C-alpha cells in the first residue's frame, strides 16, 4: 500500500502537507475537510485506510466494483459502524470507536445521493425535495430546482420519472438538507449513454455552484476526469494513491488503474475565437500555443478544460507537412516508461508550457526517433474531447 498521505492527526500548521493539492488551502476550507481513519472487515477483505477529503472541490473515490468505495461512503454517512477508527468533519467528531462515539446518520448533516435514486414513492417530487429541508434552506429551493431542471416535475410522483430525472430529484433532495458535505455513490449507474452525459453535465454544473466538498464514488475513469478535482484510488479496501487528479493522471505507474487503454490527461486553455464555417474553436494554452478544437459554446476569453486521450497524441521531431493532424504543440519529454499493459508500448510524459500531457507510443517508434528524456518534440494531437468542466 502506498499512501501518499500521512495519517491525519489533529489539524496542525504542517498538516498542510496532507492536503493533496497544489494550491494552499484556505483555513476555512480546512475546517470543512473530512478526516477518516477506518477499519472494517468486509467479507473477504478488510477496509483499512486513512483519508483526508479537502474542504472544497470534488474528491473522487475511485476503484473497481467491490473495492470498498461504497462501504467507505456508508461508514462516513453513519449508515454502518466501523470495527475501529474515526470520522471527523472539521472539528466535529462523527465517529470515534475508541470513545464509543457514533453520531447517527440523521444527525450528521451530510447529504447522501445513492446509486438508485431512492425517492419516496408516496410523496410527490416536491414532497421528496422538502422532506429534509430545514426552514433555513427554503430560500435555496427555487434556485436549486432551476439549476437541476426539475421545475416541471414538482407535482409528479416518483414512479412517473425517468431514471435521469429521478437522480436529479435525489441530488436536489440531498442538497436541500443544507448538508456540510455531499456524498454521491455512483449517481450515473444504470443510465444509458445520452442520459448519462446529460446528468453528468448537471452534476458538473452543480459542483461548481455549491460551496461544500463533494465525495464522488465511481469506477468510471471518464466520469472522474469530467467531475473530480482530487482522487483517492482504492483497491481491496486500501488506499493506493491519493492527490490532485491532474497529478495522478500524470503518473505512468497508475495508467493501468486510471483508465488503462482509454487513459487521458487534461489541458487548460482559453477560448480565442470561433470558426463557424468549419465549426471549430481556436483556443490558446497558457504558454500561448494555439489549438483547434470542435466548436464550443463558451465565448472568447473563457477558460476551458480539454480532455486528451493518450492514444490521440503522436510525437514528431519537427512539424510534419501534409498531415491530417490539426494540432502540433511544442513539448519537452519528461519521462518515458515501459507500459505495464503491453510489451510493445511506451508511456511518455511531456511538458507543454507549465502543463503536462501524455502520449502512448510504440516502443519501436521511440527507438526509431531516438526519443530521450529532456528532448524537445512536437506533440501532434489528433482529436480533442471538450471537457464540460471549465
Amino acid at each position, binding site marked *: 500500500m502506498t499512501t501518499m498521505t500521512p495519517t491525519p492527526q489533529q489539524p496542525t500548521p504542517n498538516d498542510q502537507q496532507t492536503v493533496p493539492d497544489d494550491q494552499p488551502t484556505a483555513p476555512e476550507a480546512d475546517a470543512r475537510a473530512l478526516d477518516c481513519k477506518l477499519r472494517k472487515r468486509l467479507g473477504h477483505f478488510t477496509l483499512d485506510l486513512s483519508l483526508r477529503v479537502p474542504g472544497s472541490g470534488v474528491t473522487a473515490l475511485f476503484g473497481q466494483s467491490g473495492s470498498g468505495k461504497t462501504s467507505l461512503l456508508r461508514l462516513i*454517512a453513519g*449508515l454502518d459502524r466501523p470495527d475501529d477508527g474515526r470520522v471527523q468533519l472539521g472539528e466535529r467528531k462523527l465517529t470515534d470507536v475508541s470513545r464509543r462515539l457514533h453520531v*447517527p*446518520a*440523521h*444527525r*450528521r*448533516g*451530510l*447529504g*447522501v445521493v*445513492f446509486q*438508485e435514486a*431512492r425517492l*419516496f*414513492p*408516496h410523496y410527490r417530487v416536491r414532497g421528496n425535495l422538502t*422532506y*429534509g429541508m*430545514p426552514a433555513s434552506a427554503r430560500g435555496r429551493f427555487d434556485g436549486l430546482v432551476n439549476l437541476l431542471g426539475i421545475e416541471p416535475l414538482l407535482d409528479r*410522483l*416518483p*414512479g*412517473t420519472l425517468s431514471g435521469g430525472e429521478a437522480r436529479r430529484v435525489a441530488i436536489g*433532495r*440531498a442538497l436541500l*438538507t443544507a448538508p456540510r458535505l455531499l456524498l454521491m455513490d455512483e449517481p450515473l449507474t444504470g443510465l444509458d449513454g445520452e442520459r448519462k452525459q446529460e446528468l453528468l453535465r448537471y452534476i458538473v454544473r452543480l459542483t461548481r455552484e455549491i460551496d461544500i466538498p463533494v465525495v464522488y464514488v465511481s469506477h468510471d475513469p471518464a466520469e472522474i476526469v469530467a467531475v473530480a478535482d482530487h482522487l483517492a484510488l482504492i483497491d481491496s479496501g486500501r488506499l493506493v494513491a491519493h492527490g490532485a487528479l491532474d497529478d495522478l493522471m500524470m503518473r505512468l505507474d497508475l495508467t493501468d488503474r486510471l483508465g488503462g487503454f482509454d487513459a487521458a490527461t487534461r489541458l487548460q486553455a482559453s477560448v480565442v475565437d470561433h470558426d463557424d464555417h468549419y465549426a471549430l474553436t481556436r483556443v490558446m494554452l497558457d504558454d500561448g500555443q494555439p489549438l483547434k478544437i470542435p466548436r464550443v459554446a463558451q465565448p472568447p476569453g473563457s477558460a476551458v478544460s480539454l480532455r486528451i486521450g493518450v492514444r490521440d497524441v503522436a510525437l514528431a521531431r519537427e512539424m510534419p507537412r501534409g498531415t491530417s493532424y490539426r494540432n502540433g504543440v511544442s513539448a519537452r519529454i519528461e519521462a518515458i516508461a515501459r507500459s505495464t499493459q503491453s510489451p510493445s508500448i511506451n508511456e511518455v510524459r511531456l511538458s507543454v508550457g507549465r502543463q503536462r500531457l501524455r502520449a502512448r507510443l510504440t516502443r519501436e517508434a521511440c527507438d526509431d526517433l531516438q526519443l530521450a528524456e529532456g528532448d524537445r518534440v512536437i506533440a501532434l494531437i489528433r482529436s480533442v474531447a471538450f471537457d464540460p468542466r471549465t
Partner: protein
Amino acid sequence: MLSDAEWQAIALSLKIAGSAVGWILIPGVAVAWLLARHDFRGKSLLDGLLHLPLVLPPVVVGYLLLLSLGRSGWLGQWLYQATGFSLPFTWQGAAVAGGVMAFPLLVRAVRLSLEAVDPKLEAAAATLGANRLRVLFTITLPLAIPGLLTGAVLAFARALSEFGATITFASNIPGQTRTLPLALYTLIQTPGREAAAARLCVLSIVIAMLSLLASEWLARRARRRLQERDQ
C-alpha cells in the same frame, strides 16, 4: 327479517370484535415493527409466545386469561383494586379474549408488510435528517398500509368468530357476552331450535364473507393508490 335476539347477537359481536381490534392495533403494529426491523435477544422467544394463541386450544387461553385477569388473578386483582372493575363476564372481557386470539394474526400480517418496505428508503430518510420515529410515521407505515388493513380485517374476523376463549373467560350471558358463535352454540344445545340455529349459521357466513371482501377491497384500493404513485 331478523329477531331481536339475532340483532342483539350481531350488534354485540360487531362491538366486541371492533373493540378487540381497537385495543390490539397499536401494540400489534409496535410488536410487528420490533420483529420486522430489530434484532434483539429473545426475539424468537417473543415470536413463539406471540404465536401461542394460534396453536393452543382456545379454552386454555381463556382459562389463562381467567387466572391472570380474574378478580383474584395477579393482574385482575390490581385492576379491581384500582378501578373497582373486573373483566370476566363482561363484554369488555369478551373483547380482551377476542383481541388476544386475534393478536398473532394481526402481527403476522403487519410484520410481513413492514418487512416488504424497502429498508433503503428508510436509510435514505435517515440521511435526510429523519429520526426513527419520523421514518416510521412518514415512510414505513404509509408504505405498509395495505398489509396493515389486511391484518386489521383478518383480526376483526378472527375476533368475530372467537368462541372457546370467550366462553371460558367471559361466559355466555345474553346481551353481555353472547356473541354470534355463542348464540349459535346455545341454540344447538336447545332441542327444537334447529331452524334458528341454521339462520345464525347463515348469518355468520354472510358476515365473514363481507369482512373478507371488505379486506380485499381496502387492500386493493390502498395498493392502487401506492401504485398510481409508482407509474
